[in-house]
């Protein structure tokens, strides 16, 4: 069983209150950082930890922090990305709801390292009940002297605010988030300049995911080197995985990076295997944006090596036979799931969420949704399948922000690995007329179905 760095105390009754959190070692990182370390020393520990951004892209957090323009005359900002809208991802919500002070502690320690005097938590508007939880916790932290003027009697002062969005996945993209925080539509900005140079109000800004900021707490407490001992290679530390779909135990699991995928899916400590005694057909390992893999390829790489929960192992094989760790949104599909219908829901999502600035994304996501709708409802043509591949190719790499890629990859990968299922829909329209078609008669491709105890 792995170490729980973020969730060890999450089930202690009352842990959402300052007193209980503090009694259980809370806010130690703030004391340590402000009283015994310089801001650069804090950044150095984060660098040493090897921590990579937990929001999806996996960019090294320490490196991002060191890019922050410290020469600018302008104020600096730390902005927490709590927009969490990638389908299949619900880990940030879990942390903020159950142990809000952990994020606040990480925000204080992180803001100190970056020299920010005002910081914001941008949270998706649908999580409004969590806004209340965070605001209450922030109030407690002010009252206890961990926020406001001269924190713990040191020269360092910080104000922290929660800012709700209002329903737009695109505001998870960091520059769209900053636009939204400035009171505008969430249209991503052209980069460069990067936020580290010109972010919020054109001032130097770091945007980090909730889980990334929370991880700063154990890193400062235990030291970056200790943190880096967990995991394999460049995948250090622990990761929260949001597990959903056709498994016995959906939920959030904090794993050591490096855990075998097979163990994660079948061990009772984690997902507990496929529900209803069925076989596994496919997995989307890192949120809806990453390529879907059939069961055989999620358990073993194309080279036949055991697949591990690391950035590198999941990506092994590139887009031909690999995928990505992404946000850790782990969606499992059993043999009755229809890959086409699933993909159609994703395409509808990306179409709905495209901000509309770039024509390949705005138009392409709409086309993909329409074509998939028609295939799924038994009105497709064989040529539609290649049409989808073509549209996806034309979006990929041709847009301002990565939402275009995120819409294209699921389509390209589903067709690459499950083309016969698309063809089946075109060939047998009568069989797919019932929306639950594969629950009635599963579509089997034995080679890709994982054999469990069969």
């Amino acid at each position, binding site marked *: 069983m792995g170490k729980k760095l973020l969730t060890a105390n999450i089930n202690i009754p009352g842990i959402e209150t300052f007193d209980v959190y503090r009694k259980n070692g809370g806010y130690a990182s703030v004391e340590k950082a402000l009283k015994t370390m310089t801001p650069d020393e804090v950044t150095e520990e984060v660098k040493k930890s090897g921590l990579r951004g937990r929001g999806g892209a996996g960019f090294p957090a320490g490196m991002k922090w060191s890019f922050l323009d410290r020469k600018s005359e302008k104020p600096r900002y730390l902005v927490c990305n709590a927009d969490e809208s990638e389908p*299949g991802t619900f880990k940030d919500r879990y942390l903020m709801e159950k142990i809000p002070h952990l994020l606040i502690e990480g925000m204080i320690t992180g803001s100190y390292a970056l020299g920010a005097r005002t910081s914001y938590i941008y949270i998706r508007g649908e999580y409004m009940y969590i806004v209340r939880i965070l605001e209450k916790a922030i109030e407690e932290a002010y009252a206890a002297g961990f926020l406001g003027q001269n924190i713990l009697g040191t020269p360092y002062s910080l104000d922290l605010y929660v800012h709700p969005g209002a*329903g737009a996945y695109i505001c998870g993209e960091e520059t769209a988030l900053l636009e939204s925080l400035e009171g505008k539509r969430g249209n991503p900005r052209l980069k460069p300049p990067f936020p580290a140079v010109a972010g919020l109000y054109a001032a130097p800004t770091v945007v980090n995911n909730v889980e990334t900021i929370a991880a700063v707490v154990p890193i400062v407490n235990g030291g970056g080197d200790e943190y880096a001992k967990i995991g394999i290679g460049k995948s250090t530390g622990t990761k929260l995985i*949001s597990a*959903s779909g056709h498994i016995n135990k959906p939920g959030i699991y904090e794993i050591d990076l490096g855990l075998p995928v097979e163990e994660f899916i079948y061990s009772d400590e984690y997902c507990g295997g496929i529900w209803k005694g069925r076989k596994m057909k496919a997995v989307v390992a890192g949120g809806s944006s990453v390529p879907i893999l059939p069961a055989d390829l999620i358990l073993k790489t194309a080279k036949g090596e055991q697949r591990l929960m690391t950035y590198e192992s999941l990506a092994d094989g590139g887009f031909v036979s690999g995928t990505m760790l992404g946000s850790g949104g782990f969606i499992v599909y059993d043999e009755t799931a229809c890959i086409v219908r699933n993909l159609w*829901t994703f395409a509808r999502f990306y179409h709905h969420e495209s901000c509309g600035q770039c024509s390949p994304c705005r138009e392409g996501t709409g086309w993909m949704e329409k074509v998939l709708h028609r295939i799924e409802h038994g009105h497709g043509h064989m040529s539609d399948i290649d049409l989808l591949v073509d549209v996806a190719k034309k979006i990929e790499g041709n847009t301002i922000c990565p939402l275009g890629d995120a819409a294209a990859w699921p389509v390209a990968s589903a067709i690459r690995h499950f083309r016969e299922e698309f063809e089946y829909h075109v060939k047998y329209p009568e069989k797919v007329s019932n929306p639950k078609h594969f629950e009635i008669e599963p579509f089997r491709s034995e080679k890709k179905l994982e054999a469990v105890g069969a």
Partner: protein
Amino acid sequence: MEEIKFSEKSLALVNKIIKRYPEGRQKSALLPILHVAQAEFDGWLSPAVMDLVASILKIKPIEVYEVASFYSMYNLEPVGKCLIEVCQTGPCWLRGSDDIVEHLQNKLNIKVGETTADGMFTLKTVECLGSCGTAPMLQCGAKFHENLTTEKVDALVEDLRSANARSSYMR
């Protein structure tokens, strides 16, 4: 036409929100204030309400309209007292969200996007709300209803109806 204004309580909140942002950046308060406005004025943002917000923030009305029309949580038309939003994205679909939507359509005798004749319920489908591990789910106001079954949906609808409740993200 009657002049619309915020209640004293809401106005205090609005002023508190504006102070969270640096001098001259009061426009940053727009999204949070629109939430306050929507909660105060019957769950939707009429042009008059948006104009009021513009005047408070000292920005042009168009700056409010373009934002309000971008974000899916702002309703630009009247909605029922209770807005029921069912998630329908992949992970929820895998666990039966289609059945929940169909059940609600039958129970309320409306289609998705419609409001019941008595103005009590509006039914909407939405995309992933971060509850995929407790799917299927729906949101009504600030509250998430998870691990739904048709029985749970029935009980919820009855509760809302008998309480004659108005849903609001702000509560």
